[in-house]
């Protein structure tokens, strides 16, 4: 079981038209400032070994060109003991609704796809639904409507279609790839569109 590097996971997702937040590996704070432009960004140090990034001081959010320098230095210092690592800069999405979309192989039924209320709520509310891959359009819609939080996630038919589309794409990617497990957590729904913000894909 090996986890794909962030940009490799992103490339795979993009191949299946799954929208991911704009990101780049950066090697210095200057590169991070250049990447940010006039927008706010997130910086994460990603060690090769999986660890809890935010608890270990490897993540800084909401950075603008003034705060990038200090945050970058601090992350580098914390990341020193987790070498080797890469530093990823990502554009920030403000507001929006977080969902998780994932996949796992069930020992009886094979590949299954999951959707749930995302971010910090995943474990607390355990509000999710599950289907065997490949899923149909009808399955995708039912998965969303089955959630207790469906009226928040899919406020209207347009939102329902958007989220169903994500599920169909993820199911397709999962069936056609050699991935064993995946978490797109969170995917942020915002402004009538969405962005996958964290990608965890295990081969």
């Amino acid at each position, binding site marked *: 079981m090996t986890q794909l590097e962030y940009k490799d996971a992103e490339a795979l997702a993009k191949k299946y038209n799954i929208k991911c937040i704009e990101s780049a590996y950066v090697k210095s704070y200057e590169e991070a400032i250049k990447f940010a432009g006039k927008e706010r960004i997130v910086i994460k140090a990603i060690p090769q070994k999986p660890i809890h990034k935010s608890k270990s001081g490897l993540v800084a959010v909401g950075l603008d060109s003034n705060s990038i320098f200090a945050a970058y230095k601090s992350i580098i210092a914390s990341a020193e003991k987790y070498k080797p690592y890469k530093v990823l800069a990502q554009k920030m999405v403000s507001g929006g609704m977080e969902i*998780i979309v*994932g996949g796992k192989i*069930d020992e009886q039924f094979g590949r299954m796809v999951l959707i749930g209320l995302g971010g910090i709520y995943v474990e607390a509310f355990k509000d999710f639904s599950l*289907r065997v891959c490949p899923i149909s359009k009808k399955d995708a819609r039912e998965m969303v409507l089955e959630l207790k939080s469906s009226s928040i996630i899919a406020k209207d038919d347009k939102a329902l279609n958007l989220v169903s589309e994500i599920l169909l794409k993820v199911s397709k990617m999962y069936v056609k790839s050699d991935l064993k*497990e*995946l978490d797109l957590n969170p995917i942020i729904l915002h402004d009538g569109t969405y962005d996958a913000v964290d990608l965890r894909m295990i081969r």
Partner: protein
Amino acid sequence: MTRVGTHNLHKIISPKSIAIIGASDNPDKVGHVIIKNNIDSGYGGKIYPININSSGTIMGYKSYKSILEVKKQIDLAVIAIPAEFVPDALEQCGRAKVGGVVIISGGFAEIGRIDLQEKVVEISEKYNLPVIGPNCLGVTDTRSRVDTLFLPTFKIDRPSIGGVSFAAQSGAVGSSVLDLIDSEGFGLARFFSYGNAAVVDEVDILDFLAKDKETKVAVFYIEGVKRGRELIKIARRCTKKKPIVIIKGGITEQGSKAASSHTASLAGSSEAYRAVFKQFGFIEAKDLKDLLNLSKIFTTQPLCTGKRVAIITNGGGAGVLVTDAIYNNGLELAELTERSNSELKKVMPKIVNVRMPLDMAGDADYSRFSSALDIVSKDENVDAIIAIALFQTPGADSKVASTLIDYGTKIKKPLIVLSIGGSYTKAHKSMIENGGVPVYDSPADAVSSLAALIRYSRYVNEENY
């Protein structure tokens, strides 16, 4: 392990001749009980007792030392001898070209004798022989009257002929449900207890019951499936054709703690089963009572995609409780047409307020039930009817029961009955149920069963567009 493929179970469940290996004159032996049960149940085919020590007759039948000595077509061989002798007996069944085998004997994989069980599988494959068991109760069938259950007939009620077939991995659950089916008043078609499922498993049985024309509703108690993807394949083909009610015992959470992703930690094995049931059109029962509740509505009532429910009642409070349950289950109360309302006003006494739920008052007799059912069942705004008949009231008697049977079997919309009460009520409940209309004793059970019928009808409808 290579599999024999889809097994034809017809000869096992509907045999023209049976051989009992392990037959005995000793009433304590399982082989004896099985022969006695077949005699008692009225099995009409040939019976061949087999016992290696046979002296020529057992229980009045000509007996044989080996199945190979019979030299006639044997559809079903039942093996009830100690486990270590089973492989040899099975080998002989293969050579005798029997149609199928039920191995009652225990002492295989369930106690760690995987080697013995593997021998069974090997021999079954060699002769392309369908084998049920080992370690099971076997089969019973209300038409052929074959009965391999080694349970004394005075201890368990044997259901009458009907359209529900039931398959259970567990013998204990199987026999207790069998016992209950009789008291619920809907009949049985086939029954399978398949134990260790060494050869024939739930997928084979599902496939068989799906095609079986005697089976209107198939009901499964499973503890786990070995061939998940095959189950899905068969389910895709058959859940649209007939209702498959299922209950899964044993909630396992193994592996979820060590999971490396959120998805894996959330989606344990029981969640996966539940998702599969939903996705592929199985009707999941919450518990054994629910299993029976669902069986009786699916076997007697027509499909219905609408969710507007009319309530007629001879007790106000019960009507309110059913109304609550209707909305809790995502259904709604029907709004009758103007025409129905004015017709009802004509036939109901002045004390009856004509609205939904229709409270016909405590003195409602069969003629009031009859006129209400007549008007409500013809109303285009009504998809299904719940009739509440409280038999404690002065007007309710056996004529009310027969009115409910009359409408419940005649109209094209689902009609179910709610009756709460003691012995007088129970007598009428079984009368109504034997007449082909399901009766429930709680508003929640009645409505959730109706909701399951509507959900399934919608699944069938959408899938067949």
